[in-house]
C-alpha cells in the first residue's frame, strides 16, 4: 500500500505529518531532510519519505491551492487505473496559513535562503504541531495503521 500526505506543498506541513506518521516523534522540522526544499516540490510529483513498519510506502505531495480537488482526482485515478482504493490512501493535511506555502516556495526559487525555511519550521513547530499530530493520529485510527 502507498500513503500520500497531501497538502498545498509537499515539503512543509505534509513532510512534518509524514515524519510524525513514520516515527511517532515530534522532531525539529528544520532538521528534516527535504524540509522547505522547493526543488523537491517543483515538478509536482510525490516525494518519497520512507516506509512504515508494515512496509507501506509513505509520500508527500504538494497539490497547490485546491487540495480537496486534488484528493478527488487522485482517488478517482486509482480506480480508473484498475487499482483498489486501499492500494493508495490519501490524507489531506491542513494547517493555518498553508495557502501561503506555495508562494513561499516561489519566493525561494527567486531568493534562495535557508532563513525562510527556518521561519516556516519555527511557525509549524510552535503553533501547528498539535493540529498535525491530531490529523495523523486520526488517520492512523481510521485505517488502524498502528
Amino acid at each position, binding site marked *: 500500500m*502507498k500513503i*500520500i500526505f497531501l497538502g498545498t506543498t509537499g515539503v512543509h506541513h505534509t513532510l512534518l505529518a509524514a515524519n510524525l506518521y513514520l516515527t511517532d516523534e515530534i522532531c525539529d522540522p528544520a532538521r528534516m531532510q527535504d524540509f522547505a526544499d522547493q526543488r523537491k516540490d517543483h*515538478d*509536482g*510529483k*510525490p516525494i*518519497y519519505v520512507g516506509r512504515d513498519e508494515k512496509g507501506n*510506502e509513505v*509520500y508527500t*505531495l504538494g*497539490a*497547490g491551492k*485546491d487540495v*480537496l*480537488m*486534488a*484528493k*478527488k*482526482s*487522485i482517488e*478517482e*485515478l*486509482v480506480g*480508473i*487505473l*484498475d*487499482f483498489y482504493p486501499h*492500494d*493508495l490512501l490519501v490524507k489531506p493535511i491542513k494547517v493555518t496559513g498553508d495557502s501561503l506555502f506555495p508562494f513561499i516556495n516561489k519566493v525561494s526559487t527567486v531568493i534562495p535562503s535557508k532563513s525562510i525555511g527556518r521561519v516556516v519550521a519555527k511557525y509549524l513547530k510552535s503553533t501547528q504541531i498539535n493540529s498535525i499530530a491530531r490529523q495523523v493520529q486520526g488517520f492512523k485510527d481510521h485505517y488502524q495503521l498502528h
Partner: protein
Amino acid sequence: MKIIYHCFGGSHSSVLAASLHLKLIDKERLPSKCELIALPFFDKTNNDDFGAIRLMGNDEFGNQVFVMGKKSMGNRYATMLEGVAEILGGRDQLLMVNCMNRVNWFMKLGGFTSRRIGAVSIGRPILEKGTVDAFFKLVNLVEITRLKAMAGAGL
C-alpha cells in the same frame, strides 16, 4: 490506455477534444451549435465537477477516454497525477492531454460567463464562437494524441 483530456472546467475544450477522439463529431467540418450542445457534458458541468474524471467512452483501439476540469492548476496537475500513476505502477497506462493551450479568449470568457456566473444565455453564444474558432486546433491536438496512444499501445 486511459486518456484524460483536461482543461479549466472539464466542460468545453476537453469535452470537444474527447468527442473528436471518439468520433462523436466530424473532424472535417465545423460543428453546428446544436451539435456542440448535444455532446455529453458540453457546457453542462457545475462546481462539484472540478477534479472529477468523467468517462466519455472507448475509442476503436480500446482506449478509455476521459475528461477532467482542474481549474487554473496548469501542467502541474497533470504531472501530479502522472506521478501518482508512477508510484502505483500504472504510468504507462496513462496519457494526460492538456487542452488549455488550444483555448482562445472567447472560450474562456464564454465558459466563465456560462458556467461560473450562470448567465447561460449570454455566455453560450460567446463560447460557441470561441469553440468554432478553436475547432481545428483541437482537431490537431486530438490527431497528435491518437498517434501517441497508438504508439503507446504498440500499434
